[in-house]
């Protein structure tokens, strides 16, 4: 028993609704955290995972209160302690690494001060020793030049650096238990992989116990020894990492793992119906019942207890887990119809450059171009009718910028965008013909922002129908119902407002709105990033179905390489607004040739303990593309020298048929990478 560091016993936390009902966020949670182990807590938004992590520090958010149970640390209940006592534990014995370090560092205080504060509170070091310790800590989290970083303000650092500072601050008090609340969410793929690697190193180095909370099974798989799966405020599955990921015997975990797109797997992920119930809406029976495909009558009215399965060392909350015990197909996917590419070009980008820099008045008069280093430069892509082409890259790669200028929202600086060979789209919106506007439609990342909160679904869908086809009355009504059917929403959704819909439903409405215009091309801007994984798969499947039915061309922008792998026919990899590599998806994913593609794909986290990310290059954040030479020169590990810094690399065709923009000879590159 002595190796247990934190014991959560029958914990229930909830709030009181406006009507006075008690609504539970956490329902009767019990678990133990052992010394030196890393426990991953995974769940979708609203599953109560963050509330649980905060409770382990004796912190309950405003508005919530403890209903029952305890969090025992050193055999005393943290939830019963007063603030004075908690101040001595928080930061010293238990430390937190928050989700968004950028917002969790106090903006008016220098980095050095904030770490020093933790040292002063929780150690007995003297002034000089503390200064030394700050440098040590910053070095430990691998921040360059610790002395200068300590003198900076939080906003002067990049997201990855801020996260590292938060780690250093948490380590300052030499805690016995580290709680991490989505510590890598919002970071770029490569940065995320580096931070995770750092956390693994720290866990080994210091022997600290960690509780890692995340929605991302990929990240959880890389760090945890043990995984707790939460659903609707309950633990539904708990056990060793490997058995959870390889043998998910709870139908939710099983479905979740199947709904995650995987890099190693072509084709669309399996989707799970429905979405997580709102807190308080499940009163009896199993909380997963409405989405479960192995459910029985007894699940409807009886809630299953957590049951320990000794051969898997796993606890599961399901009556029917045995039916999943022998299933062995989590690594399968729905094969996707190959696009019928009829080689008919629909959109062509020739030497497109886009600049955000504003032209000065004088330069405008003399028609001079000042910006020699535009955000996006020399983009040449031709897109065939009916294909799905994906633009991938990290933040700042210019992928959304290109999308905006195809939509006409941004004017191109140079180059031509042609639609169906003869229609010029380089002009801005005002000059485009109505029919060209109709032909290209956009779907946005966040349906909360892309749907007007003051319009109901009917009004939202009637806008394009009225605008492009002049429909009204019964005809309009009929069309709206048809559209809703297409995205599998019932007629009764017409009178609903966006706030009354779930995230997945909102995105379906946004999809329906785009299809209302009967477009030829749909531009998808990170359309699944704001959704929960189980919902994401359903939206991806819907998009594929609609495409099969209508032959629409998709231009799909995403930072999530696994999602791109699932849906795209062709991929273009971008770095700092310049193309790096372009080719058919299966080739690019199987034989990444450009050094940047290699880095990017290597950093992807898979929900599989056997696949570790490969960290090739440093995760430096560059703010501007280099003035000349290759765009990737600053981070490339295979850099040749002066040539890469001075000359723009040429296009080369690799053996597998990808086009790459690199100075290194394709044959040499292949040897280097093997």
């Amino acid at each position, binding site marked *: 028993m002595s190796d247990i560091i934190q014991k959560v016993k029958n914990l229930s936390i909830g709030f009181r609704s406006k009507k006075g009902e008690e609504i539970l966020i956490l329902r009767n949670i019990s678990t133990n955290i052992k010394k030196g182990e890393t426990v991953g807590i995974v769940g979708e938004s609203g599953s109560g995972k963050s509330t649980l992590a905060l409770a382990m520090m004796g912190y309950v958010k405003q508005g919530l209160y403890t209903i029952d149970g305890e969090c025992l640390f050193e055999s005393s209940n943290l939830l019963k302690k007063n603030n004075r006592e908690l101040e001595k534990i928080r930061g010293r014995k238990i430390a937190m690494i928050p989700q968004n370090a950028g917002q969790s560092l106090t903006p008016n205080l220098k980095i050095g001060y904030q770490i020093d504060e933790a040292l002063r509170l929780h150690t007995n070091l003297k002034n000089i020793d503390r200064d030394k310790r700050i440098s040590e800590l910053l070095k430990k989290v691998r921040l360059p030049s610790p002395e200068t970083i300590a003198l900076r303000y939080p906003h002067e650092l990049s997201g990855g650096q801020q996260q590292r500072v938060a780690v250093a601050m948490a380590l300052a008090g030499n805690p016995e238990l580290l709680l991490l609340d989505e510590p890598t969410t919002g970071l770029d793929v490569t940065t995320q992989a580096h931070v995770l690697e750092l956390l693994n190193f720290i866990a080994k180095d210091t022997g600290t116990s960690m509780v890692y909370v995340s929605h991302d099974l990929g990240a959880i798989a890389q760090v945890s020894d043990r995984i707790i799966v939460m659903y609707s405020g309950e633990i539904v599955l708990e056990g060793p990492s490997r058995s959870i990921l390889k043998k998910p015997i709870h139908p939710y975990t099983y479905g979740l793992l199947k709904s995650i797109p995987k890099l190693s797997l072509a084709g669309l992920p399996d989707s799970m119906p429905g979405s997580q119930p709102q807190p308080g809406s499940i009163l009896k029976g199993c909380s997963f019942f409405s989405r479960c495909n192995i459910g029985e009558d007894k699940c409807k009215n009886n809630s299953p207890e957590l049951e320990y399965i000794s051969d898997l060392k796993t606890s599961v909350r399901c009556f029917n887990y045995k039916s999943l015990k022998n299933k062995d197909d989590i690594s399968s996917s729905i094969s996707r119809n190959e696009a019928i590419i009829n080689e008919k070009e629909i959109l062509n980008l020739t030497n497109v450059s886009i600049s955000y820099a504003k032209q000065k008045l004088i330069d405008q008069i003399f028609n001079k171009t000042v910006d020699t280093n535009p955000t996006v430069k020399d983009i040449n892509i031709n897109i065939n009718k009916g294909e799905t082409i994906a633009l991938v890259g990290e933040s700042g790669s210019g992928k959304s910028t290109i999308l905006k200028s195809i939509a006409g929202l941004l004017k191109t600086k140079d180059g031509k965008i042609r639609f169906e060979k003869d229609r010029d789209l380089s002009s801005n919106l005002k000059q485009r013909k*109505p029919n060209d506007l109709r032909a290209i*439609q956009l779907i946005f990342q966040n349906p909360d922002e*892309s749907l*007007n909160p003051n319009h109901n679904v009917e009004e939202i869908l009637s806008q394009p129908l009225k605008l492009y086809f002049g429909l009204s*009355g019964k005809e309009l009504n009929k069309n709206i119902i048809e559209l809703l059917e297409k995205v599998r929403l019932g007629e009764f959704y017409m009178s609903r407002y966006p706030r009354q819909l779930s995230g997945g439903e909102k995105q379906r409405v946004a999809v329906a709105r785009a299809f209302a215009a009967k477009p030829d091309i749909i531009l998808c801007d990170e359309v699944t990033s704001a959704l929960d994984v189980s919902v994401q798969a359903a939206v991806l499947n819907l998009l594929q179905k609609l495409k099969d039915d209508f032959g629409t061309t998709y231009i799909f922008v995403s930072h999530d390489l696994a999602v791109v792998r699932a849906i795209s026919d062709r991929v273009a990899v971008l770095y700092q607004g310049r193309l790096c590599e372009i080719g058919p998806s299966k080739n690019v994913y199987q034989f990444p040739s450009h050094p940047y593609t290699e880095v990017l794909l290597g950093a992807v986290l898979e929900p599989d303990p056997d696949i570790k990310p490969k960290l090739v290059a440093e995760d430096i954040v560059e703010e501007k593309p280099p003035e000349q030479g290759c765009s990737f020169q600053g981070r490339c590990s295979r850099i040749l020298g002066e040539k890469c810094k001075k000359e723009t690399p040429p296009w080369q065709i690799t053996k597998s048929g990808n086009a790459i923009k690199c100075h290194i000879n394709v044959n040499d590159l292949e040897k280097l990478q093997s």
Partner: protein
Amino acid sequence: MDIDKISEEEQKNSLSKVLEVLKTMASKPSGFIGLFILVFHVVLASVSPFLAPYDYKAIDPTLMLQAPSSEYWFGTDSLGRDVFTRTIMGGRTALTITFFGSLIALLWGGLLGIFCGLVGGKIDDVVMRIVDAFLSIPWILAMLLIVSLLGTSTEVLIPALGFFYGKGIVRVARAATHDVIAKDFIVSARARGHSNMSIIWNEIIPNVRDAILVEGAMRWSWMLLGFSSLSFLGFGVSPPTPDWGLMISNARGLMSFAYWAVIAPVVGLSSLIIGINLTADAFAKALGIDRSTKAPV
């Protein structure tokens, strides 16, 4: 038939939304008190001519400065007029003028603000600079000047007050528009190729409406305060029309021995301003807008 049904439903929706907001407002004690006081004053102002026991302008030197009695509930003033009559009628002018003044402020401030937020850039800069310049002349100086040169008629007071109190609404409407136009649903409407008018009408106005209305309600209470100050200084309504500000100003010199002539209009005016203020506060909270961070400009 179908369409009729839909529009009927829509009407029901907007009406029920108003009712819902009112219900939320009245559910908290401060909102309930505010609404109660406001409704009380509006009702009182509309029926007071029929309730008044005496003629508000009847001067009687023999009845000067009578203390409150069963005959003259609130006493009489220095001209022998009944203070009760004048008090219950004293809010009529102030309420009417400031209500219509607020409407004007709401209209021009809202429209200009939306326009500035929409066009942005140089035009926005210039317009805001001019609005700022108007803002930096103390309102009271400008109002006094206008009133002293053009007179104190309603036709002067309403637009003048409306103009000076609309400046704050410009800022609020502009800021709200700025926030909204960055949202993806506006981008989406632009990308679809909707006309500017249709975007303003369908997408922007419904989303900035609440903020502007709240600001207008707040302006109302401040305008009432400003208007009473004008009256108090002798630049508001002209005698013998009963008005609280003017009554306080007239009775002030004699308050060492006839305090009742001051107390009654003080209570009347204070309660109305507090009533409007609490209502505006509750209105803002019901619509989910925090108004206490804003400066009274």
